[in-house]
């Protein structure tokens, strides 16, 4: 896509991709379940086909991709378990399903995804896949959701772990693998458009004499997956169980860009802020140190940084003195990016309602404190509002003469009708926010464009009643959300004893408003694992 997203194709895709961000069925009023996460992975591997082992209803509803509701998963064969299979076992159906899937599609990988009924009756997916895989001309891997404990998103984590465990590092042919010395894999979530987002990172690595073995997921095929264990290091966004397994079995180290594990030990909020000039410098240096390239890296980072800062100083022109209201949380546009852009964060809005059913008060308070600390580190002194009503927000915005509110499209109209301009962070987060020095320059450009939008709008949306606290929802949907949160907390005890360290460390979403990555975190287990 073009850098500013103005190309016709990319604009179209961008608006469609944003749709999932507005869909309150991602952890707010419902959760897609493990099958969706596993399908997301299968969909991202070009020559893989998923096989859903369950009743037809599982495949029926799962055809809808929770991250792209307009675009279904096209190929979702299903073993179509019926009443008899539930009583006598569905293993024969699974066996038959694997064979038929191979005959029909000739994929290089069949990813068997079990469902509630097949899990409950105890079908031995392992035995069936082991037996049948030798009869079909492709790899067969099964994922039940049981391999990764509560690591979220369970379906995605589990399926990737299964591929690593059963295929890539299964101890059979993997010993002869010729290493691609001095190289790394960059693996992001499939919906992030890895190829574009990591191009700059790969270029910096190249300068630092670090090779890029594989980038996933970017037209990734099974043969690419087999190459993953050749690298020295896996770089992932979040803690990934498959990467830990690959480290154990194939000695491929792992580096997590969002240092949640380290945050738990050090409580340094900058560890959760890997973007912008300083965040990116830190990440690049840490990776270089792991690869034994810290010497050359220092010069490369310094040169790249200096070049970017020079261009950034030009890009910042027109943003001096601009005040913004930012949304706090673990996700969202990083505060240090605003620092790089030269704007002042005058208001910091923290919404914790959605977290309340899942996290302890202590954990929620820690997230709020962490944001305030990060603001202080960045040199901001914002008025912090926790769970404000829209009226309270508007008052603070007017009092501080704030120019721009960072607000997703779900709530932008509430500010626009009051004559306050907004900047939609979703598109930026999906397509631009990344480790690298170009990102703040792009943010400057986008903020300036937002400052040119009409100050006041009275859109149709502003005529609808919205919930006073969950601004993106109507009162009815807010009720659905509260009901779901309440029932969920009661049933699985999410709200009990869960601290920031546990949840965040596990990669769970602790979203405040619009967080792309949080949405991924919400794709949980079939039994809401």
């Amino acid at each position, binding site marked *: 896509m073009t850098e500013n997203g103005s190309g016709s194709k990319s604009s179209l895709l961008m608006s469609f991709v944003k749709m999932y961000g507005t869909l309150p069925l991602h952890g707010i009023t419902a959760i897609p379940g493990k099958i969706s996460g596993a399908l997301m992975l299968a969909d991202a591997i070009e020559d893989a086909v998923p096989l859903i082992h369950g009743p037809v209803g599982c495949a029926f*509803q799962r055809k809808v991709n929770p991250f792209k509701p307009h675009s279904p998963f096209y190929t979702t064969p299903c073993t179509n378990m019926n009443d008899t299979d539930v009583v006598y076992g569905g293993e024969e159906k699974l066996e038959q399903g694997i064979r038929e899937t191979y005959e029909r599609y000739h994929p290089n990988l069949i990813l068997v995804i079990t469902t509630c009924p097949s899990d409950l009756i105890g079908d031995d997916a392992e035995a069936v896949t082991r037996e049948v895989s030798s009869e079909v001309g492709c790899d067969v891997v099964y994922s039940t959701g049981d391999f990764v404990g509560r690591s979220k998103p369970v379906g995605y984590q589990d399926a990737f772990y299964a591929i690593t465990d059963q295929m890539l590092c299964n101890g059979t042919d993997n010993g002869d693998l010729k290493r691609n010395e001095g190289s790394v894999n960059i693996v992001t979530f499939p919906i992030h458009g890895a190829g574009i987002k990591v191009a700059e990172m790969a270029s910096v690595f190249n300068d630092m004499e670090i090779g890029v073995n594989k980038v996933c997921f970017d037209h990734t095929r099974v043969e690419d997956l087999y190459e993953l264990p050749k690298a020295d290091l896996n770089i992932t966004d979040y803690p990934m169980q498959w990467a830990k397994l690959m480290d154990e079995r194939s000695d491929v180290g792992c580096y997590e860009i969002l240092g949640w594990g380290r945050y738990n030990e050090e409580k340094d909020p900058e560890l959760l802020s890997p973007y912008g000039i300083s965040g990116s410098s830190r990440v690049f240096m840490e990776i270089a140190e792991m690869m034994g390239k810290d010497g050359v890296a220092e010069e490369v980072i310094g040169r790249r940084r200096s070049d970017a800062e020079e261009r950034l100083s030009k890009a910042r022109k027109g943003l001096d003195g601009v005040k913004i209201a930012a949304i706090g949380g673990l996700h969202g546009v990083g505060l240090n990016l605003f620092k790089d852009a030269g704007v002042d964060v005058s208001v910091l809005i923290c919404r914790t309602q959605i977290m309340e059913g899942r996290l302890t008060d202590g954990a929620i308070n820690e997230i709020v404190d962490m944001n305030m600390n990060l603001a202080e580190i960045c040199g901001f002194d914002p008025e912090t509002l926790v769970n404000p009503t829209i009226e309270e927000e508007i008052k603070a915005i007017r009092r501080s003469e704030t120019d721009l509110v960072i607000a997703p499209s779900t709530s932008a109209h509430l500010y626009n009708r009051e004559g306050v301009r907004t900047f939609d962070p979703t598109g930026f987060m999906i397509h631009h926010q990344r480790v690298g020095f170009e990102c703040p320059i792009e943010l400057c450009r986008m903020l300036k464009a937002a400052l040119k939008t009409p100050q006041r709008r009275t859109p149709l949306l502003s005529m609808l009643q919205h919930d006073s606290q969950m601004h993106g929802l109507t009162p009815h949907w807010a009720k659905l959300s509260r009901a779901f949160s309440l029932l969920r907390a009661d049933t699985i005890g999410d709200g009990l004893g869960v601290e920031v360290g546990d949840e965040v460390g596990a990669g769970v979403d602790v979203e405040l408003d619009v967080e792309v990555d949080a949405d991924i975190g919400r794709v949980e287990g079939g039994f809401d694992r």
Partner: protein
Amino acid sequence: MDGGKFFGAFRASSGITDAVVLNHVPVGCNWGAGIFKTTSNQFDMRHACTVMHEREIVFGGEDALREALIRADELYDTPLLLVIAGDAPSIIGDDVEAVVDSVTLDSEVMWMEAAGFKGSAMDGYEEALLCIAGLMKESETIQDSVNLIGFSPDDFKVDADVKEIRRLLSDAGVEVNTVISKCSLEEFRRAPAAELNVVLGQGTKLCEQMKKEFGLPYLKMDYPYGLDGTSHFVGAISDELGIGHEPEFDIEPFKRIYLYLHELYGTPVSVIGDFHAEAMANFLDGELGFNVEVLSGNEDDYFEFEEDVRNSNTTILFGSSFEQGIAETLDIPLIRFCYPVFDNVSVYDCAPYAGYRGAVCLTEAIINTVMSYGGMNK
């Protein structure tokens, strides 16, 4: 592709517009039930979930169900809570009835078992209606009135279609008493007041039950697509009620685009869907003069359908959003008319596909889709 029993039961239950459906299932099924409704009416989401988790699978989901019933009763001001038990509670053997009997709530509670592996979507729809049929009450008959049975609240164009059918029947002197399943609880209770049940594709078991219990006759009709289909629909109902109405339609809109109709005459098309599909095929074939090369029902083998379409000369596909894949593969336009539609919205209730006006709207949609398909690059 069939959705299985759970989805059928959910669709029928959620059609009681002031009831709340409590899905006794793990989160995934509940998500699926919700996702298909988001393109039809986002203000009409009325379902909750017991959020079955591993603990419930091991120790039973009865406590979770009891708790959820109490919470749902507190949270929603509804006259009826409909509990649908899906696959997981069915396998582990939750005693839903005992749980329901053990709580005293403001709302009336009804429950049904609808494990997806126990039947088709139509089975679920039929059984759900039978389950709540016990709420119907003997009512004084309203002369020349009918119930329309077979609808679901997430059918594509359902509001517009029902409105058009009501208009046509009203013109014929027929009053629509209750639309099932798209009615309030009170309307559902008063359904026996009609003089005739008209069943469109599904709901026959309910009609049988009502015939037995209330002596209400029923008429099985095709979905009223097209001019002929609509005339037949209205005429048959009118005859059955002894009204003898001669329906009239306006050919004028078709005259305005007759040159395009010439061009499209003989176009090879394929149709897939639930009970709507055959009626749609009749309209396309009988009135627009299309050649229907492949006609398939949801119960048929989908792979065979795809194969047949690939081996045909099909240039327009009629189906649901699920047919995006094959339409894209074959690079042909897809006209969505049948559940589930999750990549188009239909909110204007004066642009139906059913009835006389629907024939115009549908023809317009077909021509526009063809004319705008691919622009200059194709």
